[in-house]
């Protein structure tokens, strides 16, 4: 459970801990309006998050490397196959041209 109205030090600490434990969404949800403003305006916080990310990467990135790359490759292949099946969505302009609503003026301007 997070405190409310945390200081910038506590916010950084909670961010670094959330990053380490893989629960960034929980940290983001925990932010109050004031805390969010504090984060957005603090240069120190931005600087510190860069180092927090580096510490996370150097210390814990080994967890992410799965031994079964083949399984992952099959997932990527399935994704590509699904994109191959899916026809490319027509461009906005194309669709717009077909379903362009007739305006009042156009109705009026039709030849008699």
């Amino acid at each position: 459970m997070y405190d409310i109205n945390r200081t910038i030090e506590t916010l950084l600490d909670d961010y670094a801990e959330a990053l380490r434990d893989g629960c960034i969404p929980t940290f983001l949800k925990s932010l109050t309006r004031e805390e969010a403003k504090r984060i957005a305006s603090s240069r120190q916080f931005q600087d510190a998050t860069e180092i927090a990310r580096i510490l996370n990467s150097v210390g814990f990135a080994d967890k992410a490397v799965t031994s079964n790359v083949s399984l992952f490759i099959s997932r990527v292949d399935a994704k590509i196959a699904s994109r191959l099946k899916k026809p490319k969505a027509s461009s906005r302009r194309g669709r717009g041209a077909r379903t362009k609503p007739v305006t009042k003026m156009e109705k009026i301007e039709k030849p008699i």
Partner: protein
Amino acid sequence: MNRRLRNALKGLTAPDIERRRRAMEPFVRATFEIFIRYLYRYLGNEVECEDVLEDVYADIWESPDRLCDVNNDKHLLRTVYLYYMRKHLREVYRRRNRHLHLSQKGLERLIAPELGILEMMSEEELGQALRRMLNKLKPRERRAIELWMEGMSNRAIANELKATVDAVKMLKFRTILKLKKLMHNYYPKE
């Protein structure tokens, strides 16, 4: 860049869709570890890393144009981050952000920031630099960071350092800022 990766890249940038699809396997095998470690830096969660990476590879297959001029590993990582990963990193939390207080821009800065000089360093380089910089810290500061990197909670670190939890938080914050300064002095902007 090793020959396997160079050949895979050549296949990936071919105009023929099927050839590109066949080239995906050696490309994924050659780059999976580098990319997933890099993503872990931002997400801290292996499941999310794999989900994002799956989309990144599919995007690369679909439009590999950006990779045509890649000539070394660093350039590859930089290109993939800027043109393929970053977009998906932003999307991970964008949908959830509807109910968050953090602005879209603030969220982007936190989740998928602009590339700094430290962010473009390889894991090995970063590890070496970090070890060197940790040696320049005061023993208490170094211990706090080392214990944190071992996975200890603030309370456990406070017990170890015979301090309060708030004092540990403050110590970590100051030490992280000090580390940032030290690393930037060591690797000045190009």
